[in-house]
């Protein structure tokens, strides 16, 4: 089947069912218990970046592509009313197990971020950390985020940098290098060799156009560098510290829905 016609939701549910069995289920308890808010594969602390509002207490938050919902759990512990949305039943089952264990409970909705069965204008903050931001079609999930947010609401999402997309070898087994291996013009959907799922990558100009087109004002693009205490990723080892200290491996967009 042509990559552009294939249903990426089904492919990504298959990918994340396997990844959950292999890694995220066993990792979830540790992730849920972490006292901080961390971003990305290097676990860069939110206090070093400042992408989120200073306080999330009392905010209605939707996490788009929550996986095992550890990010939502961190926000819920800080007083946010979180709803986690993910299309992969296995990851939601892990999230439910952790809820029972920790007694930290919030609603989970089984749905892709491209089509979320939740009402318009019902959230103050939409977040996605390697969730919808990488695995859902941006031309479908960004409009959903705009619909779900109240006027003045904030969208904050982390995904791979464009530089990672350009320098990653075709095989999922290999790490990024310094050579530009594929064109930037035309970047959008990709399935790496050896992967089941389909990822979505947009260049900065396209993110800005898409966000602006759906009523968002661009507040920030954070291109964080791992700090001195960061360690090399264990499981998500497409990049290491040497690379990420020279170029951003990840980027965090902050955009506000116009009032």
């Amino acid at each position: 089947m042509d990559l552009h016609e294939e249903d990426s939701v089904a492919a990504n549910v298959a990918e994340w069912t396997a990844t959950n069995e292999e890694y995220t289920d066993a990792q979830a308890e540790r992730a849920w218990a972490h006292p901080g808010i961390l971003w990305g594969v290097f676990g860069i602390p939110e206090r070093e970046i400042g992408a989120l509002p200073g306080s999330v207490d009392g905010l209605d938050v939707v996490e788009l592509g929550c996986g095992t919902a550890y990010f939502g759990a961190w926000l819920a512990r800080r007083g946010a009313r979180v709803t986690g949305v993910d299309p992969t039943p296995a990851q939601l089952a892990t999230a439910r197990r952790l809820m029972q264990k920790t007694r930290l409970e919030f609603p989970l909705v089984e749905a892709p971020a491209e089509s979320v069965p939740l009402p318009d204008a019902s959230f103050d903050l939409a977040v996605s950390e390697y969730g919808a931001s990488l695995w859902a079609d941006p031309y479908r999930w960004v409009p959903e985020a705009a619909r779900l947010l109240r006027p003045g609401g904030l969208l904050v999402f982390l995904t791979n940098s464009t530089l990672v997309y350009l320098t990653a070898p075709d095989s999922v087994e290999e790490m990024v290098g310094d050579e530009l291996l594929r064109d930037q013009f035309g970047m959008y959907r990709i399935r790496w060799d050896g992967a089941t799922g389909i990822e979505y990558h947009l260049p900065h100009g396209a993110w800005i156009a898409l966000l602006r087109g759906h009523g968002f004002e661009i507040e920030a693009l954070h291109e964080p560098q791992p700090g001195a205490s960061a360690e090399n990723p264990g499981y998500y080892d497409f990049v290491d510290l040497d690379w990420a200290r020279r170029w951003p491996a990840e980027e965090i967009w902050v955009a506000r829905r116009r009032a």
Partner: protein
Amino acid sequence: MSSADERIAANVAQWTRTNRDHTDAAAAVAWQRARLLWGVFNIPDRWVGDPADLDVVELGCGTAYESAWFARNGARPVAVDPTPAQLETARRLQGETGIEFELVEAAAEDVPLPDASFDLAISEYGASLWADPERWLAEAARLLRPGGRLLFLTMSTLAHLCTPDEDETPIANRLLRSQYQPWETHWEGYAGAEFHLPHGDWIRLLRANGFRVDALEELRAPDDARTHEYYFVVPAEWARRWPGEDLWICTKKTP
């Protein structure tokens, strides 16, 4: 002399040489352009809209060929540049073409023009690359009326990361320098300085100066574009695969 004054003086010296070697001779053709073109691959403008009756300031105008287009099309441009030799070329072209507008000899870091007096500020490989962004963006914000727009083109962040240290060497299909380094860039054998910012830093500075970011156009060289004979560092083949130039489009927010 402050280090900023020395940097500006070094850039003026460099552009005096470049004007002698290239831009003076190229000015007559550039002034005749029927369309507004952006960057080394002459990409036709799709972003300015109707220029009629706009008060336009060009920051780092060089020989002022963009301002000439605005003047020919009903706008009132004022062209600002710190290099006397380039302004002299612009004055010569004004005499030859009869297209007249104000030329101001000043660095974009410190422009002797009144607050809130322009509808549009533009910079095409001018202040956008050669002036201190902390200072020229503040000046652009000061010069614009609320709701006024800023359009500027510079070398893309990606092209800068792929630029070798060696002079006169085309960029590579490879990341050669870290993105986490000072914006101010000095090249071997050249006393002046360029400023190269990652996109996140541009967004932060633009917002800090009261701009809304409307668009980032990551420009692709047209299929029929050829590598520029003088500005050959970014070859056309490279710029068809990756953006060699970034065009930022912003609006000064209404208080």
